[in-house]
Structures are given as C-alpha cells and as structure tokens.
C-alpha cells in the first residue's frame, strides 16, 4: 500500500464518518423527527375496512355455515337446530380469536353480511378460554331444548289440526320462534336428542368451553384446565 492510498484511507474514513454523524446529529436535534406513537394514550386512526376482531350479528345470521366451511384454520364453530318454521336457529356461535388469523375470508363469503370485522385489536387474557368469543349468551342446551319444545308443540298442533280433519294449512304450524318457555324441563330434555342437529363443531372448541356463557370467564377457565 502506497502512502497515498494510506492517507486516502484515513481521509475517507474521516469524511464518511463525518457525513454519517451529520445525519444522525440532524435527527438528534430535530424534535419533529420523532415518530413514536405513545400507544395507550395516542392511537392511530384505524382505516375503514380494518380487519380486527370478528363480530357476528346473530340477529341476521342465517346459520348457513359458510364461514365455518371457508375458515382455513377452523376457528369458527356454530351449532344450530332446525326451528319450527324450518329455519335454522343458532344454538351457539363461537369464534376462537386466539386461533383466528384475521384473513377475512369468512367475511367475504357471508351471504347475509352478518359477520363483520370490527376495529378491535386489543385483548389480553390470562387463559386461552377467554379468547373464545361467545355470541350467544344463552346455554346451547337450553336453546336446543326450547326449540325442540317448539317443534314438538308445532308438530302436536299440526297433528291436532290434521286430526280435526280441517284443511291443514302451513299457517297452523307456524309458531313464533320466541315462545314462552315455562314447560316441564324433563320432557324437553328428553326431546333434545331427537332434534336434528346441523353445523360443525371442532373438537377443541367444544372441549374448551362450548358451554360457557358469555360473561363468565371462570367457566372458561375450567374448560381450559380440563384440557
């Protein structure tokens, strides 16, 4: 290495270092360059179409199970029973958001557009069971029992009508879905087994806490412990 190259080396090192240090100094003294968002106090604006937690509007949900079929990771589980009016009645609708990958495929296929992404993104929990969202607060067995009772009532009514010899119209079979439920429980539970079930139910979800009501993390925890 000649002396010239040697000196050049030194000069280049000094010059490039100085160049770099000028840039870092500019950032160092310019407070406008600070881009940190002080997260819990400040939040960024969530754009429209943000894919946050899923939410199902169960009033419009038709229990068609499209979301369940399309979900690549099987994070949605629903149970439904055929109601007295031949429509499907949801017995339970759970989404395991710990498993969900927020891909949005289920939202795209939902025919009544009842399944939506919300802008929620914060949920910390101690147990995995808490990460399962239950959209129906009522116990699935109760719903099934109630629907079974309604179906039975409707069938009985239809039979009565038929027996009476009158023109059996479909109107007679129509029972308001939210009928009063003060009938004997024993009879209802006996009927439950006969109710046609549909829908899928991934095993892990059911074992975790399919029976847990919405606002009772304790039950969910128990489910977790069992696993």
């Amino acid at each position, binding site marked *: 290495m000649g002396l010239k190259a040697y000196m050049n*080396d*030194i000069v280049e090192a000094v010059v490039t*270092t100085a160049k*770099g*240090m000028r*840039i*870092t*100094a500019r*950032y*160092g*003294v310019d407070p406008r*360059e*600070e*881009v*940190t968002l*002080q997260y819990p106090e400040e939040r960024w604006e969530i754009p429209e179409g943000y894919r946050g937690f899923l939410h199902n509007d169960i009033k419009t949900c038709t229990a068609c199970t499209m979301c369940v079929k399309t979900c690549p990771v099987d994070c949605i589980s629903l149970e439904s029973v055929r109601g007295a009016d031949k429509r499907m009645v949801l017995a339970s609708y759970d989404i395991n958001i710990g498993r969900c990958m927020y891909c949005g495929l289920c939202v795209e296929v939902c025919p009544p557009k009842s399944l939506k992404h919300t802008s929620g993104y914060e949920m910390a929990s101690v147990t995995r069971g808490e990460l399962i969202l239950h959209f129906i607060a009522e116990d699935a067995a109760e719903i099934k029992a109630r629907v079974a009772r309604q179906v039975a009532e409707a069938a009985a009514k239809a039979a009565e009508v038929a027996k009476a010899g009158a023109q059996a119209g479909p109107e007679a079979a129509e029972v308001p879905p939210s009928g009063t439920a003060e009938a004997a429980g024993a009879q209802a539970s006996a009927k439950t087994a006969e109710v046609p079930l549909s829908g899928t139910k991934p095993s892990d979800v059911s074992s975790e806490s399919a029976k847990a009501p919405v606002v009772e993390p304790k039950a969910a925890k128990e489910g977790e412990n069992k696993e």
Partner: protein
Amino acid sequence: MEALAISLVNAVPLLAGVPLWAVTLLLMVVVAAVILVFALTFEGVGSLVLRKVAGDIQARIGPNRVGPNGMLQFLADGVKLVLKEDLIPANADRLLFKLAPYFAFVGSFAAFVVVPFGVGLIAADLNIGIYYVMAVTSLVVIGVLLAGWSSNNKWALLGGMRAAAQIVSYEIPVGMALIPAVLIAGSLSLQDIVRSQSGLLGIFGWNLFHNPFTFFSFFLYFTAAQAETNQTPFDLPEAESELVSGYNVEYSGIRFGLFFLSEFGDMFIVATLSTACFLGGWNVPFFNAGTLPWIWGNLFSLGVFLAKAFTMVLIMMWVRWTLPRLRVDQLMRMAWKYLVPLTFVNLLGVSLWLLVFKGKGIPAMIASLFG
C-alpha cells in the same frame, strides 16, 4: 491527603485530640465515598442519557415512563438489576465468575482518584497521574477476560479473548497519544497538565491548539480510547449481533450491573482524560479560577470541567449511534497499521516542535507577535 488532613485539624478545633492518621483515614473514606457516589450517579444518569440520545438520534423518544419524562428510569434499572436473580452457570468457575465483575468495576472506579475535577478538587494529585490511570484501567481487561473464561460459554470466551487482544493493543496508541500533553506540561501529574493550559483567554491555551500535532493527537487519543474502552465502533468484545453479548452473556443481576457501570465509568475516564490533557481541563475561559476564593474557584472550575467532560461523553454516544462495528482483524489492523504509526509520528512531531520553538505553541507565538 495528609496536608489536607493537617489543615482540617488546624481549622476544626474539635479534631485536635484525634491522631493525624485517623483523620487522614477518615478523610480518605469520605473522599472515596463522595467519588463513589459521584461515579454511580454519573453512571446511572449516563445510561439514561445514552438511551435518550439514542432515542433522539433514532427518531424516537427513548425512556419516558418512569418519573417525569423518564428521568428516574436509571433508578428503576438499578433497582431491577439489584433485585434480579443472580445466576451462576452450573459449569462455571464459580470463584472467578464472581470475581470478574469486581475487577472490571474497580479498574474503572480507581481511575477516578486522579481525575482533576477542579482547582483543588482532586482526590490524590499523584505525580504519576497518567501512568496510574493507564495502569488501573488495564484491570478492566483482567475482569473481562476472567468473565469470558469463567462463564464456560464459547461466545463469552470469544468475547473475552477479543477484549484481551483489543485492550492490550490499544494501550500503546492511547499512551503515545497522551504523551504530547505530558511533554508540554513537563509532568505526569494531571493537575500540572491542566495548569499548563491556563492563560491566553482560556481557550487558546489548550493543548488542542498548541500545535498541529497535538491537534491530531487529540483525535488519535479519542479514537484509540474509544477502542480501549470497548465503545462502538470498537465494541467487539460485546458485539451483540455477533457474539450475542460477548463476555457478559452469562451474567445477570448486579454482577451484570457492575460490568455495565464499569463501561460507563470507562467512558467518563476517557472523557476526563481528553478534557484534562487536550481541552484545558478545569481552566475557566477568560479568567483564572485559581485567583478566586477557594469555594467559588472550585465550583466554577468543577462546572467547566464537567461541562467539557459531559460534552465529550455525548460525542462518544453520538459516534456510538452512528457507526457500524469493525471486524476483529480490521480492528487489529487499525491499531497496528494506522494508530500506532500515526501516534509515533505525532509524538516525534510534537517533540521536534517543542525543541525547535522552545516549547511555545502557535497561539502563544501569535500572541507574542502582537506584543
């Protein structure tokens, strides 16, 4: 220290009956405690400032949660380090593993003894001040090497070996770069070196502007000293992205804390040495601090000294957050092919200058031109 003890005994009649050695000892302990408190505070605050500077440079904010604007972060860090479990690897050499952090810490802390904080503020004005500093800061390498060896971890061992090679190599340019200041002052005592830079508006008396060679000396010293204290771009013994964390990878809790503190201690020692040897030390610009009443003179000079030293520390941090890291062979090449020859040339230049111009610097010559 004895002289101070005598004057103290004379000033305070209460101490008249106490033997002199006891007063001296007591004084030593007090001074040591003061310096320790200062060192720890500096090291704590230094770590906070380092992170704040890093935040500013990196377009973010830095710690801002503990205390107002994150001011108490260093206390939280300290408490955390003290409270953390002190792990010792199962196959470590337990004695050496425990000993290593103390070597590192003592090495950096003992150097504070000869730091000339002010006109009269120096724990021990040794007549071999610079040699003393270089000798005790070398203890750090023993600590680092022990840590690397005793951890029984290959990464730590590599870090320790790197540190040993690096620090030993860079002792030479560091020493050679400091000698010009010694030559000008004609003394190894740091106080003498600082005093030799007084006068001429305070600024132009600095060794930095004495002659072109001392000017380069300063930068050579600064570069070499960065390497000697394992600062980026020469932080190879730690080299987070290569050696995971180097020699201190197995350390936790307060033992890690001691390494951490010694790092900042070293940083401060480098800053003080460059301040004392090249930037006029505690000399207050425009007037002579020695002529003021004792208390004011010391306060002024202390303030000036700390301001200069902290500026140097800030510059070190600035460099740290700008530059990438050298490779180990490049580091050695830099020491032996660049810094060592250059410092020798510089030393020769300064010596010739002093010989030819009878010890006068450029500012002094210009001043004498104008009468």
